[in-house]
């Protein structure tokens, strides 16, 4: 099967879908749109044996990917188990990028320095972006990873993020869910983030 065409503005977001990550999830969506990039996630992909194929296809269609491993840790609920989905998807991405370096570029994100060297020593030599668990950290590191001569200042990026964050409750109520990571909510968040970027950065 031939790989899908590459969307040059698309960024595959390999992130944890948990409550502690919600603000950073919004920051990634908001920040990418402000840099003229489009985020894509796996939340709309159904389970089953074809899920991995579809995830690989999504990775192949995106020019870039961000792998935020800051929450790869033991779960609180028994049995205590680390989550491996994100490292698995990172592995798929690295393989794809090794085979087709002109089609894909991937980035590692972490919350604290040197954690990645402990959790994944095979990646020694690959420096991650460190967001320190903060919205401002995600936004400023996005500007560092994706260098654009017209990139908005972090102050403006935070303002557009606040526009998205301030509408969150109403978006969830309208979607009839409290699950921020639902596929339909992702589309709504993208729509609001995109409009917020157009408002803050000039239309």
């Amino acid at each position, binding site marked *: 099967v031939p790989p899908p065409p590459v969307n040059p*503005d698309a960024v595959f977001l390999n992130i944890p879908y948990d409550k502690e990550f919600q603000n950073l999830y919004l920051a990634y969506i908001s920040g990418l*749109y*402000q*840099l*003229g*990039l*489009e985020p894509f996630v796996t939340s709309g992909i159904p389970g089953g044996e074809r899920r991995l194929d579809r995830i690989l296809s999504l990775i192949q269609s995106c020019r*870039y990917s961000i792998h935020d491993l800051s929450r790869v840790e033991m779960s609180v609920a028994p049995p205590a188990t680390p989550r491996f989905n994100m490292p698995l998807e990172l592995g798929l991405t690295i393989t794809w990028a090794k085979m087709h370096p002109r089609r894909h*570029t991937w*980035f*590692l994100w972490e919350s604290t320095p040197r954690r990645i060297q402990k959790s994944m020593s095979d990646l020694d030599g*690959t*420096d*991650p*972006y460190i967001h320190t668990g903060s919205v401002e950290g995600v936004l400023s590191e996005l500007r*560092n*990873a*994706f*260098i*654009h*001569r*017209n*990139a*908005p200042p972090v102050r*403006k990026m935070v*303002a*557009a993020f*606040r*526009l998205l964050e*301030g*509408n969150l409750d*109403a*978006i969830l109520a*309208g979607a009839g869910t409290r699950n921020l990571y639902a596929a339909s909510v992702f*589309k*709504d968040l*993208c*729509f*609001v983030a*995109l*409009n*917020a*970027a*157009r*408002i*803050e*950065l*000039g*239309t």
Partner: protein
Amino acid sequence: MPRSVHISTLIPPPLSMVKRLRIPKARQKQLLAIMDQARQRTATANPRELSDGLRQGKKLLSASAAR
């Protein structure tokens, strides 16, 4: 140093990205109304918190949703 790439995307993001989201027009209008209500609430309660873009009165309605 982490790797970085130079990009030349369109800033602000183009309306074609709205179309690619494939959100029904009715839902787009709901979302724009939600954004406008939030802006009005902020403008009434604490105008100093309005961002530069909103203070300048930028239109919330995107062209694709208005069609």
